[in-house]
Structures are given as C-alpha cells and as structure tokens.
C-alpha cells in the first residue's frame, strides 16, 4: 500500500474514526490526538494488514486501542465534581449526545459502532473482541438507559414549557 492509497482510504473513513474516537473520549481535541497517533501507527504497521478489505476495521481497532491508551494516561486526578460536562459539538443532536455521553463507556462503544456506523452485532463483537451475546446485552442496556434518559429529558422540557 502506497502512502497515496493510505491517505485516500483514511480520508474516506475519517468521519467514522472521529465518531469512534469521540464515542470513547468525548472530547474533540483528544479525538484529533488519538486519530493522529492511530494514523501514524497504522502507517507504520501497514505490512501487518493481511487483507486490504479489512483496512477500515483494522484502523478502527487501532484507534480503539489508542483511545484506551489515552484514557489510561489521562486518568482523572481531580474529583468528579470538578470534571466539566462534555459540551456537544456544533451541528450535533444535543439531547442524544448528552444521553450517550452519560452512558457507561462499555455501553457507549457498541452503540457507536452498531447504530452510528452500521456494523452488525457480530462485526461489533469482533471489533470489540467480545462475544456477540455481550454486544447484544450491552446494546439492550444502552437502549434502555437512553430511552429512560430521553423520556426524562422530554418530561423536563415539557415541564419547562408547560
């Protein structure tokens, strides 16, 4: 794979990379850092990719690892009260963003991959290296949590308007 081909493929999947990274980090700046590290690592290790058809999933897996590494490095040293709430990016669905952001990290990633990126349960399971059943469970839990959160949000809004 030439650098030109690599660039073209990365540009075509950069939105996916953004969403996956954001789904884990909930911060656009960290997201860019993680993606940059991911791209450099992917280029460096490109010879380990056996089939180019798996390029996208391969890069996403690298990105997930980078994000986990970054999260480990940036473990909060301040109290939870002082951590600012993630601010929804412009042009985003703020209610959904906030609801997903409040989800547990374990539930958030299957939601991003399955609902946002359209990966099937088995593909998501393979990407996250967990059983399909676990993915289904987490997706179910995530849906239930999101439903409750969104209903609460709607009720609050009605009360404010009403």
């Amino acid at each position: 794979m030439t650098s030109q081909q690599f660039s073209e493929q990365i540009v075509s999947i950069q939105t996916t990379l953004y969403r996956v990274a954001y789904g884990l980090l909930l911060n656009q700046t960290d997201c860019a850092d993680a993606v940059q590290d991911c791209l450099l690592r992917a280029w460096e290790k490109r010879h380990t990719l056996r089939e180019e058809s798996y390029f996208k999933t391969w890069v996403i897996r690298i990105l997930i690892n980078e994000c986990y590494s970054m999260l480990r490095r940036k473990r909060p040293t301040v109290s939870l009260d002082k951590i600012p709430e993630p601010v929804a990016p412009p042009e985003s669905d703020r209610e959904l963003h906030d609801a997903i952001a409040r989800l547990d990290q374990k539930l958030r990633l299957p939601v991003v991959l399955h609902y946002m990126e359209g990966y099937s349960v088995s593909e998501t399971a393979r990407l996250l290296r967990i059983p399909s059943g676990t993915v289904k469970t987490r997706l179910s839990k995530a849906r239930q949590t999101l439903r409750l959160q969104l209903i609460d949000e709607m009720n609050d809004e009605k009360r404010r308007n009403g």
Partner: protein
Amino acid sequence: MHDWKRAFGKPNAAFEQRVQRTLRQIQEKEEAKVKKKLTLSVVLACALCLTVLTLSALAAADLLGSMKPDVTLSPLQEGDAPSDSPIVFASPTPTTDSPTVFASPTPTPMPMGYYYVGGHALYHVDFDCSLLHGKEVGIISNDDAASLGIVACPYCSASLSYYTREDDPFYHVDESCHTETAADPSDDLLSVSWKDAVSMNKTPCPVCIGSSVYCTLAGLFYHAEENCQGIENTDEMPLYLAASVLLKEPCPICAQTVSDSTSDHVSDDKHITPSAAESDPTESDETTARADDKSLYCYIENALALYHMSENCADIQGVVAPALWTDVVSTEDGVQYSACANCTVFAAKGGVFYHMDPDCSGMTNAFPATKAYMESLGKQLCPECLSASTLA
C-alpha cells in the same frame, strides 16, 4: 426523532486539518525514504560500476602478468618492507622479449618506481631479472628506493652498463679489466646491458664482478652462503657490489675465504687462470686459496664434453670456451663434462699428492689444476692413480 449519525456531529475543521497534516507527514516521510533509497541505489550502482571497472583493470593486469609465466606478481608480504616505506603494488610493465643487443645504457624510466622484493637490498628495472624469480614482487617508488638506500640490481639495471669484447667470455664492470688478452684493448669494446651480456653467452668476470655473495638490506655482512646462520631475504649479488657499493663486511662465519681470495684477485687486478697460476707458483698457501676459490675457470670443449685446465692443452681438438669450473662440474644443466686426462689433475686441500681421478681413494672437495701447477707446488702423482694409468 433522533438521528444516530447526528449525535456527535461532524468532525470539525481542526480535526480534519490534523488528519490532513498527519497524512502529509506520512507522505513526506515516505518520499524521503524513497529518495534515500534512490540515493543509496545510485551509490550502490556507482560502487558496483567501480568494482566492475577495478576488476576489469585487474583482469587486464593479470593478462599482462600472464605474459610473465615464470614470475608471480603479488603484493608484498606483511613485514617485508619497512613500515614507513610507501610501497605501492602494480602490475608489471610489459617488456619486449627480444633482447636488444648493445642497447643504450641510459636508465629506463619507470612510471611507478622499480620492482622490489620487500626487505631486499636491490631494486630491479627488469621484471625478468633472474633475481626476482620465485619471489613476491612489489613496486617501490624511485624516491623511496633512494631514501631507503636500496641500490639498482647489477644484473638488470639499465643504468649499469657492462663491458665486453667479442672474444671475451666475460662481461665486466671495469672496462680496463681483462685487457691483457686482447690484441688492442680499445678495439671492439662493447658497452652492454646485463640482458645483452647474457644473450651473448657472457659470464660475470670473476675479477671485477666477482663471485656471487648474499646480503640483506639491513645486514652488516655479505655471505657466501645464502642461508648463513638462518638469514632470510637475501639478495644474490656480485661481491664488488656488496663490498664496494653497499659497503658490507665479509661474514666472519661464511665469507672470510671469499673475501680474502677475491680481494687478492682484485688487488692484483689479475684473473686466476691456470696459466696465471702456473706463472706464479711461489704464492704462499696457494693450495688453500685455490681449493676455496669458487671462481676457478676452465675451458670446455663441447664437442667432446671435456674440460681443460690448460688453454694450450695438446688434446684440444676443436673450439673451447672459458667457463667457471663449478658450473662445469655441476650437473644441473644435464651435461656431464669430463676432465681432460692430459692437462687436468686434482688435489685435495693440504694433500701431498695430486690425482688423475677426482674421486681417488674417496677424496672429496678436490680442486682441479694443471699438472705443471701441481708439480710446481711440490706435489707428486698419487701412486694409485699412477698404477691405474700404467695399467690403462
């Protein structure tokens, strides 16, 4: 209604720029790598070309070297040459095989220096020089040869001219040497190179050139024996060169006799010929000197495979040529010369009798002389040889 894909919005400009910058960085790194590879390839290609050219040159040199089948030219061995002598190695310069008779004695310019065997005392201008045979030859620059005190080989140096005459069996370094036998010494004196002299079947004059001795570059002595006391890297050279040019002293172990006999000859400026010896029979310990003398010469008659100690022997029937007696009796050439029974007798060093048979009674190291010379020394014919000759 919520749209999953709009939950996190779109990547902002900063994100996109970061991705673009990273990709550009990757591309630049790759281009640099390719450029480096290309440069390396060019360098390797150049090195390969250079190697091929060098090998071609070496092959050409080998081809030239193959014109000299008797001598292998190779770099000097480690330790052969002084450490500070910048000796370079090169292929031999091709030389013409046909000797030019009466060549000009002007020095032949060597582009890279002289042929030289590491640690030796002589440099050579002729790759065919017999002193180079079987040795590993390098090249030493003219300046280095001069600074190290290495002198020109007396045999092959074109700068050294020799003198001879058509009727003279010897070649000389001294043009006045051996003039007593010439009708007119100034006539037909030829200035020749060693190669020319050899091609004319001339041998080194035992008086002015002397017998061969051996010496090393750094040694104080010259030796009669090539490996005296285990010395190595010796050069064979005429005594006059070792003693007069290199100022070496005679080795007290092996060369004292050579020194004494030859210095006597040189000081007398006279050949030790049978006739000369006959004319001066009263010389003290003549027997010993003669027995040790390696420059005795005789007259060979090729047709009969005989050698005579007297030039005027009545048994000489054809043409005779002077030759060193040691060469004549040596069987290296495959020709067996017999001593003329009429003029040649033998005696052992310090012996009372002279003999007709050189091996009489198991005698060893007998030297030849004329009968008259032996009798002049007071020797008598051996009774055994006498009875044998009577019976015959």
